[in-house]
């Protein structure tokens, strides 16, 4: 607030205009009456993003102006700005190249040219190696490199991807038959249908969607919010991007149904910042399809942890994306403290099919990348053996498969008959997570992948709770000692302790799973033993 007179810098006119476009123009001086609106902090990240897209970074003037307009202490706003990898508080040129060096791109030989920034997974794994160029200015833009996706590698047996495979126009609204049907059925009946379906959350936690909806619908506290979690940032994941880019109307229609069923007055879609085409297509779909609920697109700023639902709420509300303690759970105390349905994109696009009752197959999307002939998005019925998927994708002589992403597990070649279902995965002590399948071929090196995973978690830990903040650092250090031959002998014991402590005592899934892949690499594959 202005009583902390630490930021005297003024914004440039361009920055002021960019921020005003988000928060509204400032009232003239000299009035006798003023009203504080303490409810607008949630515009902080959009305001900072707007300023950065205008001039390339968030200057002290822009930070101070956004703080003042939104009545957030500058120190607090600084804490928010520094939380996100893609917000820069240091001067940099308007054009910045972010080169993905994460798992799939590393397998494809990614290298960072001088002046470019290395980046965690950009969600372009089927086109690896990939990059994202951000260009600030009067007409800011973001460019994915390579610029377009290859066609879907699979053309038959599709349900969620069917319209995409058929080449539906992602910019023209289709008939919203499922939404119409839902309104005929009534909210209660829609919830019953979803409860009766086998639909489990597809963000990674696999919670029954119908139960979640019912819990929110029953809450007497109003308003209810719907949040679509489209912040997929698990290295190797790109399924939600493909859905949003190629069939955004399916998501918008599903949001309309979900909001109708659960009594939500407003919906937010929180999309990671690295998906410019998804932003554009989704905004167009929101504008063109009236689904009976106000839908607001929110764009992240580079933070893996914001995919955790409560961190995502914090981010929307204008705070650092630090997860909250649960309970209370979002169905009771969620976004802005209100009962909230939070569903992943893939989860939601199942809903129209359930409402229409036309295709009862329970399918699941898999993001296949790495050493395969046909990387891309696959849709298979749950229970299909992993080997079958690998065959479809053209994976030959895999020496390991990372299932579930950085938070998942490495499998040996002799474990590839695993049926891809929640139950089978659980029995095998692994997770389908967000459907990531990264294939390591004969010649691939596993040690760099393990080190990269450790680096990823260390970098993405929000730092809020000790087990994760300290544990991810110690894990990476121990792995580097092992990898560089400077081991002192107790590394494996240390890693085992860290695995246990992070799983038991971290408050969110990031810390709880930060040792999974590392642990499986060591104990299942025998890497670094």
């Amino acid at each position, binding site marked *: 607030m202005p*009583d902390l*007179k630490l930021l005297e810098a003024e914004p440039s006119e361009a920055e002021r205009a960019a921020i005003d476009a988000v928060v509204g123009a400032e009232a003239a*001086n000299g009035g*006798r009456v*003023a009203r504080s609106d303490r409810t607008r902090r949630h515009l902080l990240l959009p305001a900072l993003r707007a300023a950065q897209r205008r001039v390339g970074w968030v200057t002290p003037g822009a930070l101070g102006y956004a703080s003042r307009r939104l009545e957030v202490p500058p120190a607090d706003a600084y804490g928010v700005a520094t939380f996100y990898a893609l917000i820069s508080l240091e001067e940099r040129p308007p054009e910045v190249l972010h080169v993905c060096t994460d798992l799939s791109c590393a397998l494809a030989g990614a290298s960072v040219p001088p002046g470019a920034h290395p980046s965690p997974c950009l969600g372009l794994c089927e086109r690896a190696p990939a990059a994202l160029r951000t260009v600030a200015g009067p007409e800011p833009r973001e460019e994915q490199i390579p610029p377009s996706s290859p066609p879907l590698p699979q053309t038959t047996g599709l349900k969620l991807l069917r319209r995409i495979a058929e080449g539906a126009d992602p910019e023209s609204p289709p008939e919203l038959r499922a939404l119409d049907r839902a309104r005929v059925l009534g909210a209660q009946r829609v919830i019953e249908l979803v409860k009766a379906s086998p639909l489990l959350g597809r963000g990674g936690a696999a919670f029954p969607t119908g139960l979640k909806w019912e819990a929110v619908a029953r809450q007497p506290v109003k308003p209810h919010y719907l949040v679509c979690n489209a912040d997929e940032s698990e290295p190797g994941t790109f399924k939600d991007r493909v859905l949003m880019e190629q069939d955004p109307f399916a998501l918008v229609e599903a949001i309309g149904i979900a909001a109708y069923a659960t009594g939500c007055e407003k919906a937010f879609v929180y999309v990671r910042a690295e998906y410019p085409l998804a932003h554009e297509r989704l905004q167009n779909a929101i504008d063109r399809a009236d689904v009976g609920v106000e839908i607001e697109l929110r764009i992240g700023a580079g933070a893996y942890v914001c995919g955790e639902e409560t961190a995502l709420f914090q981010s929307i509300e204008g705070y650092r994306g630090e997860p909250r303690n649960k309970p209370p759970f979002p169905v009771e105390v969620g976004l802005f403290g209100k009962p909230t349905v939070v569903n992943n994109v893939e989860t939601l696009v199942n809903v129209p099919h359930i409402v229409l009752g036309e295709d009862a197959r329970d399918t699941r999307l898999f993001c296949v990348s790495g050493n395969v002939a046909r990387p891309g998005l696959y849709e298979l019925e749950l229970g299909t053996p992993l080997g079958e998927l690998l065959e479809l994708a053209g994976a030959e002589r895999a020496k390991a498969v990372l299932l579930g992403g950085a938070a998942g597990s490495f499998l040996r070649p002799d474990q590839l008959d695993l049926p891809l279902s929640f139950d089978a995965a659980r029995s095998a002590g692994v997770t389908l997570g967000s459907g990531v399948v990264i294939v390591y071929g004969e010649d691939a090196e596993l040690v760099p992948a393990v080190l990269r995973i450790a680096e990823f978690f260390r970098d993405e830990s929000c730092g809020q709770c000790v087990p994760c903040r300290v544990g991810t650092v110690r894990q990476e250090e121990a792995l580097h000692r092992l990898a560089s031959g400077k081991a002192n002998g107790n590394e494996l014991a240390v890693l085992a302790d860290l695995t246990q402590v992070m799983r038991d005592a971290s408050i969110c899934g990031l810390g709880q799973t930060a040792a999974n892949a590392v642990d499986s690499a060591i104990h299942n594959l025998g890497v670094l033993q």
Partner: protein
Amino acid sequence: MFGAGGGTSSYEETRAADLIVLWGSNAREAHPIFFHHLLKAVNNGAKLIVVDPRRTPSAQWADLWLGLDVGTDIPLANAVAREIIEAGLADMEFVGRATSGFEAFRESVQPWTLDEAERVTGVPAEAIRELAHSYGEATHAQLCWTLGITEHHNAVDNVFALINLALLTGKVGKWGSGLQPLRGQNNVQGGGDMGAIPNRLPGFQEILDDAVRAKFDAAWGSSIPPKHGLHLSGMFEAMEHGDLRAVYVVGENPAQGEADQARAERLLQGLDHLVVQDIFLTRTAQLADVVLPAAATLGEAEGTVTSSERRVQRVRKAYDAPGDARDDIEIVYELARHLGHDLGSTKAEDVWNELRSLSPIHAGMSYARLEELGGIQWPCRDESDPGSLFLHGRLWDDVVEDRAPFQVVEHDPPVDTLDDDFPLRLTTGRRLESYNTGVQTGGYSSPLHAGGLDILLAPEDGARYGIRDGGRVRVVSRRGSVETSARYDKNLRAGLAFMNLHFPDEVATNVLTIDATDPKSGTAEFKATAIRLEAIA
């Protein structure tokens, strides 16, 4: 209002309020501890309304800010009262049972229509209406004020104007609603409670009451004169007339804290004898014949302090005072011994127990109970009394013996009038990091002091009088002038300027201020000075 000077309600009630009005209070900077309690209410959904000429940091936090002209609090309050009556929001049952003088009061506020109040105060009628309706309709409302109300030549009338609003709506004497004059330091309340005011003995007992005096005379073996003493402004008048020739100053810096500073310093220098007892060598101490170095209350002495919510709390000694500094009690008692009197034990608890034996509102507060209960709010009349969360609950009895009177108060604009020679209104106030004349806060360097010397003005006035943002300026009032730098502040409207008083050695703001003093409270009109600005090339 009812004989005892203290906030009627508790922090706990503030936290539970659904409306908080800060009237002439920038609590966010000047009362940060209280403001934390207030914020809890705000976070729970309470509405905050701030009445202040400046859009202060507190006002910036408010749901509604009313930027009235300096010194127009009575017109505003009277218009609020009129609107409450007209809109049927007055608690007529309470008015009829617990108050007196309503008819005359209603008559007196009749001229203050919303439009007339807008004309005089500058605040749009619609905002005044909103304030009236918010206050009238609130279930739990706290009406709080500080020096924006009391540093005027008609300070007491200003306070009466606010009390009238509480009486009119029955927002006093019951849980959740009350009147709070916020205290600027941890023990301002305690000072008055202990009798450091000219008309009362400890525990707010009237000095003119024979029975009261007889009790104290018996306990102290003395003969207390049956007359009111002098308040600070009265003392300076007495100095001016030569009636007061020797002064003993304890923990106060009047050489820099009084309005019209040049006069204050001249009068102190002209005394036959000046004794100053303080923890710092203040400007006043530098003028003294004798300086008695004292131990700090916090950390170096045993005793009690009393907060804005009338809560008496223990303070404990943690370490020895440096050098020759001695405990205040020891100094006073030693002085008495030299004058031939033995005041008894200097142990803080013994002094406190003597106070308890004489002040009924403190009688139940043994050290053991203060410790056990984490402080006790007065009145606390015996050792089974838990203390009082709020005052004046008696107003809600079925039969009210001693009714609370409405006070008819009329608008009386500031003494230092604006004209062509002195066209700008200067008001003074506090900053978050500093306290009063800076005795305790100016002695260390801090980035928070940055800009502390500046006069703040509206950018429009800067343009009008040819003063650059950051430029040097001479500030001239009818009493004197100071030179400083100017800084534009968009929270000021044209015609209003602001200075603080924390750095008197560098910028003696009180050289400018007027010593027009409220005869009833003894407080000078620090808040309203007429000035002009002269750019220094």
